[in-house]
Every structure is written in C-alpha cells, then in structure tokens.
C-alpha cells in the first residue's frame, strides 16, 4: 500500500468516524440537542429555526454531494445555494432580532 493511499484512507476514516460518532451520539441523546428548534426566551417551537435547519441540511447535503463527485478541486457552489442559505439565515436572525426588540419594548411598557 502506498503511503499517500494510506494517509488518504486514514484521514477519511477519521473524518467520517468523527462525523458518524457525533451523529450517533446526537441520535442517542448523549450530545444534547434538546431545544435546538425552540425559541430560547419563550421555550416554544420556532418555525424560523425549523426552516433554517431544513435549508442548512439541504445546502450541506447538496454541497457534499457536489464536492465528492467533482474532479479537480472543490466545486464552486451554485449562486442559488448561497442565496438560499443566506436568505434562510437572514430570516432566522431577523426573527431573533424582532423577538428581542418586542421583548425589550414590552419590558419598557411594564
């Protein structure tokens, strides 16, 4: 076995093993993910977080597929992918800012 081939296999094993371990530990509840879709302040389910999670997972999955099948360097992600991720995160942050302002305004009224 060539040393480059060995290093390639070992590094891929490491990254996939690490990702797999983290994913399994999350699924088993050993890494806490409780509350990831809930609003921190109110504790209720947040649609902004849900859409952001879905778009993030879709973007990451699409890009991973592109980068594995692409030959000759990392592929440039399509503009639509960047736009979708940016818009989704902007929506999530916008909802967060709005909730913070609303709370501050309500606190002042009280």
């Amino acid at each position, binding site marked *: 076995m060539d040393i*480059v081939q060995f290093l390639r296999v070992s590094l891929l094993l490491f990254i996939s093993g690490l990702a797999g371990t983290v994913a399994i530990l999350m699924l088993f509840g050993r890494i806490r993910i409780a509350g990831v879709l809930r609003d921190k302040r109110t504790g209720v389910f947040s649609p902004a977080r849900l859409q952001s999670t879905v778009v993030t997972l879709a973007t990451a999955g699409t890009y991973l597929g592109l980068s594995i099948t692409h030959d000759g360097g990392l592929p440039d992600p399509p503009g639509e992918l960047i736009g979708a991720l940016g818009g989704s995160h902007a929506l999530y942050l916008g909802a967060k800012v709005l909730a913070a302002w609303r709370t501050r305004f309500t606190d002042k009224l009280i």
Partner: protein
Amino acid sequence: MKTVWIYAALIVLTMLGLEPWKNWAAFDPGDFMQWSLALFLFALEMAFIFFIWLGTHPRQQNDRFPLGINLEKLISESDGAASFSRFQFLIFTFVVASGYVVQVFMALKSSAPVPDIPNGVLALIGISGGSYVVSKGIEKSTGDGNATGSQTTPSTLPGEVYKP
C-alpha cells in the same frame, strides 16, 4: 519486554511490505520514518474517536471513563440548552472539511497542486460563521443567554433527574 517491542516492530515492517530481514540493503530509513509518522497519526485519530465514545456515550455520569472526551455539551450554551447556531456551524465544518480532504487526496493522486478554496465556499462558511456571531451578539445585547425561557428545556440526559 524488549523482545516484544522487536517482534512488534518486525510485524509492523512486514505489514508495510518492507521485510527488513530479507534485504537490509534495501531498507530505507526515510521510508520507515514516513510510515512511522503515518501510523502514529492514524493511531492518534482512532484514539481520539475512541475516547470521545468512551467519554460521551455511557448513560450514567458515574459510568463515564475518566479520561474520555465528553462532548455532551458540544452544541450547548452555558445554560445547557442546545444552540441552533452552533449546530449549523458544526454541520458546515464537517461538510467543507471532508470535501476538501477528498479533493486534496484526489489532487495528490494525479500529482496536481493542492486545490484552492473557491469564493463560493468561503461565502458559505462566511454565512454560517457570520450567522453564529450575529446570533451571539443579539443574545449578548438582550441578555437572552440567561432568559427564563431557557429553563423550559431541561439540560439532562435521558434517565437523569433534572435538578434546577
């Protein structure tokens, strides 16, 4: 004990196809050093994953291996609740890192230079990281990290009793 190490070294060298006892003249110390470093790196990587599993997986706190790496709060805030920003940042780190490693080794195979990172990928990482930073900024400015709502998400493992 010394004999065991000599046998172990011979086994490793045989596995690498160097077969030192057949032809000592062909034995290359540089090759040996490269392989030793590669094997050390591999052992370190596997040990890292193994210790993460030992330190995080057991159900009860007492069952955890004391030297294990506990990733229980990998994406948690200081109050114990999971953070969406950290979660998405983690996903992008894994995706870009694995894609880059695959591309680097593809390039090495064809003797091409180490590939560049395109601007689009930097934009993706920037959006992900920027979202994390802005989110933390909003929380800091509003004192959201210590909000009462965070207490509604119990920070316990399954099977543990929640103690506020």
